[in-house]
Structure formats: structure tokens, C-alpha cells
């Protein structure tokens, strides 16, 4: 499946998707509320993007961007990067952990590091940090006067 075919297929299902081919892999940016349906479509036939190998979030100071790296276990040469911007003040996005099970732990990590709330996540608790930790450490404006040493 070439990039053109993938784009065509995705446009059929999510007309508002924005494509970016400048990088190594095809980037698809969608609205955060359209991400879950698109993810389900990608996971199903014929794309069969059943291997979510990286899930993370990037803080662009104005907004947060959820980044999903997908590939297919049957054809590992097709790689898709799925992106969705979320509001920085009130970051909410639908969970994908019922599509890819690995997302459960990865979303917990993003939850505590960026404060993104995943709707319908079965067990959204802190995984690494202490229960009463304040703040989101991987956001750009996080300050910890005691433990962060500025060189």
C-alpha cells in the first residue's frame, strides 16, 4: 500500500485529516474527537494497523499533541504517525486502549507526565509518580526548585 492509497483510504473515512509527508513516515493530523474512530478504522481491515509501538505526547506550549506511531504486524514497512492536538488547559482525549492493549500503560504514563485525561480508560492512575505529586513533569513549564538543577 503506497502513501497515496493510504491517504485516499483515510480521507474516505476522515475527510478533515491533514497529511504531512515531509518526515520519514506519513503523518496524519486529526481533531482529537475524531481520533478514536479513525484509530478503529486503521486497526481494522484492510489497513490492519495492529501494532502501536509508540504513544506519547508533545508539549508545544500552546497546545499538547498526542502522537501515535502505528505499524502493521503483517507489513512492518508501513508506518503511520497519527496526531491529535488537545487543549493544554483541559486536555481530554478518548482512550485507545480497547484497540491496542499496550496503550493502557502508555496512556497512564502520559496521564501523569502531561496531565492528559483519557476518557473511558479502565484504570487511569499514576504509574510512576507518587500519588500526591503536583504538576506534570514533562510539560515545558514544569518547575521543581529542589530536584531540578539548571546547568
Amino acid at each position, binding site marked *: 500500500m503506497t502513501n497515496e492509497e493510504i491517504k485516499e483510504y483515510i480521507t474516505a473515512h476522515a475527510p478533515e485529516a491533514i497529511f504531512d509527508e515531509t518526515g520519514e513516515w506519513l503523518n496524519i493530523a486529526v481533531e482529537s474527537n475524531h481520533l478514536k474512530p479513525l484509530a478503529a478504522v486503521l486497526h481494522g481491515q484492510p489497513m490492519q494497523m495492529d*501494532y502501536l*509501538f509508540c504513544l*506519547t505526547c508533545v508539549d508545544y506550549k500552546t497546545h499538547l499533541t498526542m502522537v501515535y506511531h502505528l505499524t502493521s504486524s503483517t507489513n512492518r514497512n508501513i508506518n503511520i504517525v497519527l496526531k491529535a492536538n488537545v487543549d493544554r488547559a483541559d486536555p481530554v482525549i478518548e482512550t485507545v486502549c480497547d484497540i491496542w492493549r*499496550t496503550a493502557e500503560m502508555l496512556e497512564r*504514563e502520559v496521564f501523569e507526565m502531561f496531565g492528559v485525561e483519557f476518557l473511558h480508560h479502565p484504570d487511569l492512575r499514576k504509574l510512576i*509518580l507518587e500519588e500526591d505529586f503536583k504538576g506534570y*513533569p*514533562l510539560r515545558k513549564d514544569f518547575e521543581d526548585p529542589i530536584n531540578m538543577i539548571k546547568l
Partner: protein
Amino acid sequence: MYNQTEIIKDTTNLGPEGELVVNMGPQHPATHGVLHLVVTLNGETIKKIEPHLGYIHRSIEKMCESLTYRQFIYVTSRMDYLSSHINNTACALLVEKGMQIEVPERAKVVRTILNELTRIASHELWIGAMAMDLGAFTPFFYAFREREMITDIMEETCGARLTMNYIVPGGLMYDIHPDFQTKVKAFVKQFKEKVTEYEDLVTGNVIFQSRTKGVGVLTAEDAISYGCSGPVARASGVSCDIRKIAPYDAYDRVEFDEIVETAGDSFARYIVRVKEMNQSIHIIEQLIDNIPEGDFVGKTKNVLKLAKGEFYQRVETARGELGVYIVSEGGTTPYRIKFRSPGFSNLSVLDHIAKGSKIGDLMATMGTLDLVIPDIDR
């Protein structure tokens, strides 16, 4: 943070249905570091496993945001310390890809050899630790004897035994030691002789087989869904070797097999790793006599600046697929860096495959998942 009374309550209370809740770790002989598993038990049978992480979290991703592209490589050695060379290679490859640095052939070949040596060293340590988890103490020492030869080679060439930091963007930090080839050949020879010892002591042992066969079965669908990679996924019949999918360094010119087993149990994971060691030896044998002459490091600018954009580099570490994801704003430091560590995904599958088995099985399952806690916590 917990206060004192809460901790006591936590450990003495029973589960919701009167099950035994046992805290395995952070200090436990079988969790290899500071992994904390809250295990809910019904007698000896495991009902639920809940990992609690963060005991060795150093926030490497945040640290790297303030380090330059030359400096951040050394930090990654501390992630998965057993395959530090491979982690370093991943970062170096990413910077090279982002800046289109030409890497000399000599550096590529040496990197490949070192990566494979690292893989063998990691599997050697794993085989010893795994046997120790199952109660056989002696194979640990035999495995370490061979591993010691690798660390000696590393010490001589890279100057350190564990966190080498030998690989820099563009090639190697300095040339290989003159004795490198003879030492590696001696190692290959000894390894081939001694690998049969594991067959006698571990692989063929009836107790070991009964402890691992049919234990912690991971199906291919689950392996994919949970994002497992490396020997864990390959033991379930998922072909996922990055060295084959997206060859880097000199992997495109060597001939080796991707080991895939189909059983998906602990024994299959064990067999995959043992066979992988032999494949690594095979790769080393192909390359060791053919290290091309020439520069060991390519021409690089003094200050490295990645172009604005996003970069992703995958490599196959001893534990699975390591991904480095960098968002660059064009400066000398990464804007955002994410390490997709193989251990994290492999750990997430633990609850799924160990549920319903005995405590003894948990050790076999956890041992064969080959968890390295700093890799999970980062």
C-alpha cells in the same frame, strides 16, 4: 507519598475477597532491581499483578531536553544498561539520519560487532539470572565467565565495562584496540565450546523444562496488541526483528536468521534467546575478519544542530525494539525526546500471562520477559 500508617494498612489488609495481597519488591530477590509488583494471591495462585513503577525513574526524557546532541547519548547507556551500546547506536543513528552525516564503513562494521557482543553479554547475564530465579545457582557463574570475556573486550576497546559511551554521531569515539580482532575470535571460540554447558545444565534439565514449558503462554495476537517486541514477541511467532525490517549499520550485508518460535511459553522465550546468541556469533564471525580500513568517524560539525522536524529511529536491543523519537525545533538540544523502551511494553503483558499461575511460575514468566528496570522507568 504514603504516610506510615497507610503502608502498614496496605500490607496487612487482605484483598476485596479475602485474598492475600503480597508486595513483591521493590526489594525482592527475583525482581532484579526495584520493580514493585502488588500480587493478589488466592493461596498459591495469582489472581492479579499490578506493577508499581518509578523507584528508579530519573526522568531521562526531561534531562535530554537540556543536553546537546553529543551529550545526550551517554545518558541512554543508563537506560537499558545491559545493551548500552545498542542504545547509544540508536541515538547516534538518529542524529546521523537527521543531519545526513556519512558514517564510514569501518565504524558501521565495528558498531555491528559491538552491538552483537552486547547482545550476547546481555543474554548471558539473563540466562544466569533466569536460572537463578528458578533456583539453579551454578549456571550464573558459568554464564558470567563468558560474559567476563566480552566485558574485557569492551574495557580494552571502549574503556568501560558497562556504560561504554563509545559511539558518537558520525562513527566511533576512537579506533578499536589493536587486539580487538584476536580477542573477539578467542571469545567466539570459547563461547562455542561452552555453550553446550547450558544445554546440559539448563536446557535439557527435566526440572527446568517442566518449570518453563507451558508457563506464561503469550499468544501472537496478545503479543501484537500489547506491543511486545524482541525475543518475547518472537517466541510467540511474531516476526519483529528490526535488524531485518529496517536494517541499520552493517546488518544489511550480513546473513543471519530471525529466530521465531511459535509456542509462546517461557521455554520458547528461553530457546529464542539461546538461539539468538548463536546467530549473534554467526554475525560476528562474518564481520570480524572483514573490518574495512579507513576512518572510524565521519566528518561532523563541531556543534550539531538537527533540522526542524520529527525523527524516529528504531533499533533491536537485546530486549526488543527501542525507539527514539525526537521532536526538534532546530536548536542544539532536542525539544522533546521519547524513548520507546522494549521493557515497558513487555512488562505490561505480565499481568495478562501470569494470571492464574502459581508464584513459582511468576518467577519463570518474569525471568523470561527479561525485564531491566531502569529501561522500564527511564
